[in-house]
Every structure is written in structure tokens, then in C-alpha cells.
């Protein structure tokens, strides 16, 4: 249907529209008009993706000079594929309606592993291996060698692409990863480099977060994206953690050992080259004197060694004299390495800031701040000069050099924690140096700074005001949308007590309590008797789950549950978990019924949807607080308090509640779906917890569903499930939660729609 959104003609590829989609598009339009950033929360299953795409594409078509590009960031490859498929539907609709030829170019970009078509390289199993192998075939000096020595293998796909690919633009259309591969095969071009080149002039790019947020990659892939782009982060409820992870470095003794060997290899290579080709090293030296401006010449293929965000002025400067010659640099690295080794030989925990660390290193081994800053860039240059092909081996020293650059560049927002052993195994010495980023805004700042509109959206972003604070930006729109429903298809219940009136909670003091564990078991048992097909239960941690399940086994609860349903358990092993998932779905499908025990923050809680019968109930045992004793977390909390005036408790609760919402949200994936959401902890009933749930869940949480006993839960659950099992057709939704064009245009519907969005 064709919609008029605030004066903009939007083509929407479906016959019906949800009221909240309309409202969402209105808000989005306002954000784009203001050329600002936005935070939008809308429940999953209400068609966020298509709303985003149709509005932004319409905007691009209407104002081609205002918005030139859409950069859509998603988390996983399947999600990326899903977005591209929606886009394809939209574009088909456009061509059908306007009968004009499609001149849009949209493509997905992923890692080499997903895009490589080289017969040998693509057969490799791990991403790192593929990258390494690809590098050894396409690096600039390898190709230079190939010129003089044709027996040196190169990748014919890349050669072909390099020869002609850049001149011939990729024809407009929608390309997902497979389409790119097909296109590459047909032309004999490398799809990966083709895609990376094509994103520069594509209208829509769909790729993973990391291409924008991880400074090591972003610098290469996304550097030349136009300022007039709209950037969308979908499923962005964890964006702060992604930012932090991309800037943090962990160094163990093993890393250092491997680094040691790297340094030795470097040294040997240098001395060998010195004998054979001293001119080369001299040439490098003079280049370094001139500074790092040359940077981009052959960088495209030498991807790993790019530096983390270096301030521009550094690139203008010359590399300091002390590390300019190759031997000196290796010597420098050796010294740095020895220093790190010495630091790891400790028996107590040390925590210090970056300036402290720099001062200490200066005192102990006389390493200045300046050469440290150039470490990453210098190493990159050296590796290129030495023509070392198999770069994967050098990951350890690369990591160390990144660390050196980061620690000397940022004095704020980072902390260094050296622990002699892991928290959970206090007897086994396993020293780790955490260089931990505490400020997610550091990684994302360039994104907000550079692009005119950045949209952060997800099903669970509540409380909305916290994201702008921790990411340090000023949004022009902050809105939360509810799900309009023809029937109340979600039923959140807070269970606070067992039938024996013992409070149910995973609070640290009582979590080992026999009565609590038994009540949790009874809850699961009772639910397994009334909920059809699949139940997903989430625990706060693996350890807690193991304890509880063991205890249930001893009490015979497990045996009783198994009479109703089969039990599957998520483990830390990915293969085992996917096996369990598969069997779980099979059991749901054929009527046997199953329970999946899993862990909040685990793989299941984030990426896997339990549509319809795969998840008729979700039970959240306890409040999924992050492990609060971790020093990294403590440091981060302190930083948040000092810098952003966010109290520790607020942040912890926010973090726990967003994960709880994520977990329970797994069950409802659309308006025809239905499911029970059971929060089994009395602490959920408190206003500070409840208030942090997304609005679309809170709305259905009445006073009558707080602090229930198990019996009451069973009663309510039974009633709900029976109600939901009544026949429900599309006509029932029409006019209420599903609108035709005429219905949408009626006056009172527009009024109702205005209420859907709640501005924070």
C-alpha cells in the first residue's frame, strides 16, 4: 500500500499495516528531518525491519541529496540475510508499482569466510584460517613477487577483480551473500573485495556491527562512507557491550609466550634480510622518517594490521627515532614484552589507570609514551617490509602492539587490572592482564560524530534514557512503541512465593536455601503439566543452573517433570547446545513436549527465537544480575558513577532487566503468537525492577499478577492458555491491530496511533 507519512510517499509492500508501524515511521521521519539521532523501542514481531526499510528508502528516493546511503547494522549473518530478503520484497513492490527500472544497489557484507569462492581457501573451516590464507594470496608484496616469479600462487579471483572489477560498476539490484557469490563466480571476481569496493557507491549496505564499531575494522571498511548516511543499529540493546569488547584487550601468559616467539621470528627475518637486501630496510627507514601519510597505498589487502583509532595528528607525525630502525623496534618490543612478563608475575591483584601504567613503565624500563603510541603502526610497516605472508601467526604480537597504542593514547575511560588467577579457580595461577574499556562512548563516538542520523532500535531498550547517557549522545527522538493487540497474547506473571509461602528469590543469601530450590522445582513441575509443547527456562548462570538441577535430581523433582516433558540443557559447548536445541524443537513438534534449561546471557537467550509452539512459556528463575564481584565490572561501575552520574545499583538493575526482558521476549515473536512470561523472583515485583521492563510488557503486568504463589500462577496460566487456544483469525485483528489503508486514514484511528508512541 502507499502511505502518506507526514507528507512523504512511502511504499509499503504489504496489504495490511500494524498501527505501531505507522507510528514508528512517523517518528523515524521526524528524526531524519531533524538530521539527528534516535532511540526507538518497538517489540519484536511487529515488523520493525520493514518499517525502517520502507521509510528510509522512500526518504532516499524523495530527497536523494539529503540522505545518500543507508547503513543497516545487524548482529548475525542470519539476521543480515533476513533484512536483505525484506528489502528484496520492498524493491519488488517498488518496481511493480512504479514500473520503473530499479536503480538501487543494496548489498550485504560479511567476512571472507562467508564470501570467499576460492576453491581451496573457502574450504577452510575457521574464519581466521580463511583470512590468513586469503592474505597470503592477495597481499600486495605477494602480488609483486608474482610478477617476477609466476610460480608464486595468487588468488585468480582477486587478480581478475583488481584488473577490471573497479571500472565496471556492479549492476543495481539486491544482493545477499549468495547473490554476491554467484555474481562473483559468473564474472570470476572476488565477491569479498567486490562487496567492499561496492559499498562505497551502494545505496544500502547491510553488515555487522563490527564493521562500524570495531576501530580496527571500521577504519578499513567504513572509512569512506558519506556523511549523509543514515546508520541503523538493529537489536541494539547490547550495543554498549559490543563497543566495550571492541576496545578491550586481554593478555595472558600464553599470549606473551607466543609473542616471544613472534619477536624471535622477526629478529631472524630481519638479520636474514639485512644480509640479502639491506636496501629494503633502508627504504623503509626513510619512509618512516617522512611519516605515516603513505598509509593507504596497499592497505586494502593488508587488513589486520591497521591501527586502532589514532588521532589524525599522529598520522602526520614522523615515527619517533627510537623505533625507526627495524632492530631498534624489535629491541623495543622485547623490552616491552619483558616488562609485561614481569608485571604478570604477581600474587595479588593490581588495578591501575593508564597514566599510572605509563609512569611505571617509564621508571622501570625507560619506555616513553610516544614510541608506544606508534607501536601498532610501526609493526604493520615492519611486517609489510619483511614480506611475511602468513599473518595469522602474528596475532599475538599484533595484540600486544594494539595494547601499547591504546594504553598510550587514551588516558581516560580505561583501566588496567592484573589478576594472578581467575575468580572461580583461586588456586590455579593463571595471570591475566585486562586492559578494559569502561566507556562505550569511545568506540561509538566517531559513528555519532560522522553520520548525520544514527538510529538505535530494538525490542528491549527500556529504560530509554539510559542509552543516550552511557553512549554519550543527544538523540532528537526517544520513543517506545507498544504492541496493539486484538487479544492480550502475552501474560507476564511475577511469582514471588511457593505454596508454602517461602519467598522465592535468587538473592545471594538464599539461593542455596533448600526451600527456594524446591519451590523453583515445583514451579517448573506444575508448569510442565499445564503448558503445551515447549517451555524455556532461564537461570542466572551456568553454575547456578548446575547446582539447582543437581538438587532437583536428588529430590526426585526431575523425574516427575520428565513424566510431562523431556528436558534439554544448554551447555557452554556450542555444538552440544545446538544439538539440544534441535532435539528440543523436534520434541515440541511431535507432541511430546519439552523443556529447555538455559542461561540468561547465553547463546539461547540472545539469538534464538521460540516462535509459537517452540515456546509457550518462558520462566525466568531469578534476576539475571551480572557477576558483581568481577573487578572489571566494579571498575566500570565506578567509572559510570563518576563520569555519567549513574548509580551502581541503577546500572546493575538496568543490565539485569534488559537481559530478563530479552529472555522472556523470546517467546512472543508476533501478534498471532502467544506465551506466558513467568518471572520467578519476588524482587521483580518491586517498582524499580518492574519499571525497567519494556513498556509493552509492563502494560500487561497488572497489580493482580504480582507476587503470586505457584497455585495462583497455575490457575492464571491455565485460564490464559485456554483463552489463547480459542480460534483466532485475521479478521479478528483487522481494524484493531491490523489495518487496511482506509482504516488507517480514519480520524479516530490516527488519534489512537498518536497514543502508541510514548516519548521518554
Amino acid at each position, binding site marked *: 500500500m502507499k502511505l502518506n507519512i507526514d507528507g512523504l510517499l512511502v511504499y509499503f509492500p504489504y496489504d495490511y499495516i500494524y498501527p505501531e508501524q505507522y507510528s514508528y515511521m512517523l517518528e523515524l521521519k521526524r528524526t531524519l528531518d531533524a538530521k539527528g539521532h534516535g532511540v526507538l523501542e518497538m517489540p519484536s514481531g511487529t515488523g520493525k525491519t520493514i518499517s525502517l526499510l520502507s521509510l528510509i528508502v522512500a526518504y532516499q528516493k524523495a530527497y536523494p541529496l539529503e540522505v545518500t546511503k543507508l547503513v543497516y547494522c545487524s548482529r548475525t549473518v542470519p539476521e543480515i540475510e533476513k533484512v536483505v530478503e525484506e528489502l528484496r520484497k520492498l524493491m519488488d513492490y517498488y518496481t511493480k508499482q512504479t514500473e520503473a527500472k530499479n536503480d538501487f544497489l543494496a548489498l550485504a557484507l560479511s567476512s571472507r569466510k562467508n564470501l570467499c569462492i576460492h576453491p581451496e581457501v573457502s574450504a577452510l573451516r575457521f574464519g581466521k584460517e580463511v583470512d590468513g590464507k586469503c592474505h597470503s594470496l592477495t597481499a600486495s608484496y605477494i602480488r609483486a613477487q608474482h610478477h617476477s616469479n609466476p610460480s608464486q600462487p595468487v588468488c585468480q579471483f582477486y587478480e581478475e577483480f583488481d584488473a577490471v572489477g573497479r571500472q565496471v560498476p556492479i549492476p543495481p539490484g539486491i544482493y545477499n551473500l549468495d547473490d554476491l557469490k554467484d555474481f562473483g563466480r559468473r564474472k570470476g571476481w572476488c565477491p569479498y573485495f567486490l562487496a567492499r569496493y561496492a559499498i562505497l557507491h551502494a545505496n544500502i549496505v547491510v553488515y555487522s556491527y563490527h564493521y562500524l564499531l570495531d576501530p580496527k575494522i571500521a577504519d578499513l571498511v567504513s572509512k569512506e562512507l558519506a556523511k549523509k548516511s543514515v546508520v541503523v543499529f538493529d537489536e541494539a540493546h547490547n550495543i554498549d557491550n559490543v563497543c566495550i569488547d571492541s576496545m578491550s584487550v586481554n593478555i595472558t601468559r600464553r599470549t606473551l609466550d607466543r609473542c616471544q616467539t613472534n619477536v624471535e621470528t622477526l629478529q631472524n627475518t630481519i638479520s636474514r634480510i639485512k644480509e640479502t637486501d639491506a636496501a629494503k630496510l633502508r627504504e623503509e627507514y626513510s619512509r618512516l622518517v617522512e611519516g605515516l601519510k603513505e598509509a593507504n597505498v596497499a592497505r586494502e589487502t593488508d587488513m589486520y594490521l591497521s591501527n586502532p583509532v589514532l588521532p589524525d595528528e599522529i598520522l602526520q607525525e614522523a615515527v619517533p627515532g627510537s623505533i625507526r630502525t627495524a632492530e631498534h623496534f624489535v629491541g623495543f618490543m622485547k623490552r616491552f614484552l619483558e616488562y609485561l612478563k614481569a608485571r604478570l608475575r604477581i600474587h595479588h591483584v593490581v588495578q591501575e589507570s593508564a597514566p599510572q601504567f605509563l609512569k611505571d613503565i617509564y621508571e622501570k624500563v625507560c619506555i616513553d609514551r610516544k614510541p608506544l603510541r606508534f607501536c601498532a603502526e610501526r609493526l604493520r610497516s615492519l611486517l609489510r617490509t619483511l614480506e611475511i605472508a602468513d599473518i595469522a601467526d602474528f596475532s599475538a604480537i599484533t595484540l600486544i602492539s594494539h595494547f601499547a597504542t591504546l594504553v598510550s593514547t587514551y588516558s581516560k575511560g580505561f583501566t588496567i587490572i592484573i589478576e594472578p588467577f581467575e575468580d572461580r579457580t583461586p588456586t590455579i595461577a593463571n595471570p591475566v592482564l585486562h586492559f578494559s574499556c569502561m566507556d562505550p562512548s569511545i568506540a561509538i563516538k566517531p559513528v555519532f560524530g560522522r553520520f548525520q542520523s544514527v538510529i538505535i532500535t530494538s525490542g528491549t531498550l527500556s529504560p530509554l534514557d539510559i542509552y543516550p547517557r552511557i553512549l554519550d549522545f543527544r538523540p532528537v527522538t526517544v520513543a517506545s512503541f507498544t504492541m496493539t493487540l486484538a487479544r492480550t497474547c502475552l501474560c507476564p506473571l511475577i511469582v514471588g512465593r511457593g505454596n508454602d509461602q517461602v519467598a522465592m528469590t535468587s538473592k545471594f543469601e538464599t539461593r542455596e536455601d533448600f526451600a527456594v530450590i524446591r519451590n523453583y522445582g515445583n514451579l517448573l513441575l506444575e508448569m510442565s*503439566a499445564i503448558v*503445551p*509443547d515447549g517451555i524455556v527456562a532461564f537461570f542466572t548462570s551456568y553454575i547456578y543452573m548446575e547446582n539447582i538441577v543437581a538438587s532437583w535430581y536428588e529430590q526426585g523433582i526431575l523425574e516427575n517433570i520428565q513424566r510431562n516433558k523431556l528436558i534439554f540443557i544448554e551447555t557452554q559447548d556450542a555444538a552440544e547446545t545446538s544439538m539440544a536445541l534441535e532435539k528440543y524443537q523436534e520434541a515440541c513438534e511431535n*507432541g*511430546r513436549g519439552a523443556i529447555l534449561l538455559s542461561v540468561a546471557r547465553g547463546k539461547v537467550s540472545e539469538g534464538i527465537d521460540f516462535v509459537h509452539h517452540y515456546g509457550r512459556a518462558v520462566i525466568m528463575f531469578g534476576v539475571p544480575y551480572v557477576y558483581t564481584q568481577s573487578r572489571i565490572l566494579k571498575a566500570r561501575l565506578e567509572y559510570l558513577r563518576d563520569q555519567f552520574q549513574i548509580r551502581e545499583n541503577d546500572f546493575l538493575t538496568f543490565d539485569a532487566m534488559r537481559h530478563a526482558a530479552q529472555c522472556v521476549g523470546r517467546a512472543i515473536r508476533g501478534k498471532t503468537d502467544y506465551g506466558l512470561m513467568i518471572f520467578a523472583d519476588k524482587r521483580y515485583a518491586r517498582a524499580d525492577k518492574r519499571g525497567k521492563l519494556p513498556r509493552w510488557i509492563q502494560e500487561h503486568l497488572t497489580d493482580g499478577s504480582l507476587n503470586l504463589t505457584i497455585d495462583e500462577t497455575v490457575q492464571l496460566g*491455565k*485460564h490464559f492458555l485456554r483463552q489463547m*487456544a*480459542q*480460534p483466532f483469525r485475521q479478521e479478528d485483528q483487522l481494524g484493531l491491530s491490523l489495518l487496511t489503508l482506509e482504516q488507517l486514514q480514519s480520524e479516530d484511528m490516527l488519534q489512537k496511533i498518536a497514543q502508541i508512541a510514548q516519548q521518554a
Partner: protein
Amino acid sequence: MDEEPERAKRWEGGYERTWEVLKEDESGSLKASVEDILFQAKRKRVSEGHGQVRLGMMRHLFVIIDSSRSMEDQDLRPNRLTSTLKLMEFFVEEYFDQNPISQIGIITTKNKRAEKLTDLAGNPKKHLAALKKAVDSTCVGEPSLYNSLNCVALPSGTEIKEILVIFSSLTTCDPANIYELIKTLNALKIRVSVIGLSAEVRVCTILTRETGGSYNVILDESHFKELLMLHVKPPPASSSSECSLIRMGFPQHVIASMSDQDAKPSFSMSHLDSTGEPGLTLGGYYCPQCRAKYTELPVECKVCGLTLVSAPHLARSFHHLFPLEAFQETPLEEYEGERFCEACQGELKDKSVFTCLACKKVFCVECDLFIHDTLHCCPGCMQTDRTS
């Protein structure tokens, strides 16, 4: 069933929050509650049922009753099993009342097995006796959907066209892939309907969708009864089934008195296979073809295979052939005229009124449903017929 009020008793209905229902109605954005939708569905059924469709008049129905552990649940009083069996008795009576020339069979499933309670037969007495007896049986283990469907579908082959499953459990213990069986059922054109007692189970959804049956889940006992009664009415015949002429016999009832010298007491053929109370009787129905004697109708002649019915029986199922046309629905505001229902004489208060197209009399919602579901003829038209 007379003592059962419209809805289950208040204290049995769980935690009902009437104030919440009220609130939902007012708030606007969320007002369509499930009950509203249900009511719409009910109306729709009435108006839909009377299209020009062919109905299968001779039905062969198997009812599968779940007797697993979950039947001991007490959310229906006194428990699910007793309640179900009681309703089943009522159903069997009603079934034969409305479909006099049809047959029924009953199967129970528990402990992963299926067990035939009664074989396919056209005589309500045997079924009722079996149902009464089944009340005392214990409910154990899990049901097996596969075994019970298999038990029906395979041996009796093409004869069976309908299966009704009353499914209480949320799990089924199957020895093989049930989806294969569903394919077979589909190929045999067997329609499987399910009435769920607890919640919607995926496998039943698929089963009914694939075989073209209906799937409903009960809300309370009165709803259960309602759903069960839906299956009393014959379903539309599948288009592929041919029109075939069926030979039927209309035996005369011969009454002989003891004083008559020629009359000799004889055994009825229907006592051949039943173990209970064989007796010599004087009168009975005699098959017009082979003169075999039966005490009850309808029945299939044991000797020559002729279907024996009585004319009134056949006539009773006529209302399926000449259904009462749906009444026209008009909103109350638009309706002008006297504001009371022709049938119950109550004041018209509902949102809409219903007008009979033939006699132009108006009725309220409840009466409309009653007329179409039970009476099958319009009281207004009857009156005008008589007076004219």
C-alpha cells in the same frame, strides 16, 4: 445436564477478575476481548452452516477418549474423566437423535496404549452402558495419539470417515512418526477433529488442519458441552464421495400378543453377539428381505446386510437437508418497531436484532441461536402458517 447453569459456578471458575474485564472494555485500545471474538465466531457458525452444502447423512464416527493421568485433574467437576464421560453419554444420545442412521464407536487411550471400548455400532444402549462402566476405570500414564488413531484407521479402512479426539493431556507417547500417520489419514480422507481439555497442542493443530477437521479447546464445562454438540451435526460431505443410492429396508413392527396362538417367541438377531440378557420375545422388526428379527432399529441386518431403519428416523434427519435460513442481523439503533423479542418476549437490549426473512419477526441473540441450533424452524413462521 439440566442442573448445569450457563457458565460454571463462580467459585469454580478460578480467579475471575470482573473489574479487569470492565476496564479493558473502556480503555479502548485493547477492548476486543476473547469473549467478543468467541461470540462473533458463534454467530458466524450459524450463518455459515446453512450454505448449500452436501451433508454426509450416514456417519461413521469414532470417538477417542483420552484416559491418561491428566484426566484426573479436577478443573472440571468432579474430575475431567467423569465430566467427560457424562457429557459423552449426552452426546451419544443426541448423536443418534439427530443422525438416526449413523454409527459410532468409542476408544480410550491410556498408558501408551489404545483400547476399544465399543465397536462401531448403531445402537446407543451398548455405548451408554460402556460409558457408564468406564467411569470407574483408573487414569494412568500417557495417552498415545498414534496408537489410538492407528487402531481406528487401519482395520476398518475406508468405512470410517470421522474421528473425534477428546484430548486432555499435553503430551503424547508415540511409537513412530505421527506425521506419517497423518499423511495416511489424509489419503484415506478421514476427518479428525480434536477437543482439547487443557491447551493448544501443536501436533493436534497439524492433525486437524491436515485432515480438515476442527480443533477447539474448552474454556469451562458449558463450553465443553457446546463444542461437543457441534459434532452432532453432520459435517459437509467431501466432494469426492460419490452420490450413491443406498438400499434400505423399512421393517414393520409386528406386535403379537401372548394370546395369539400362531405367535412363537423367538430370539432377536441382535442378541447373537451380545452376552447380556438374551431373551425370547414375541414381537419385533422383521427384515423385509430375509425375515430376520430385530428388537431395535436402526440396525444393519446381520444376514443380508440391509440397512434397516424406520421412516420417522429418516425424517428426523431431514432438517439437515432443509436448514432454516439465517436471520438478518441489524443494529439495534437502526431497528424501528416494537422492542421485544418474538420468542422470549424479553426486551431487546443487545447490540443487534435478528429478523426472520420469511415472516419478518424479530428475535434477540439468544433466541436466534436457540432457534437455529435446536428448533430448526422459525416460531414466527409456524404461527403465521397456522393462522393463514
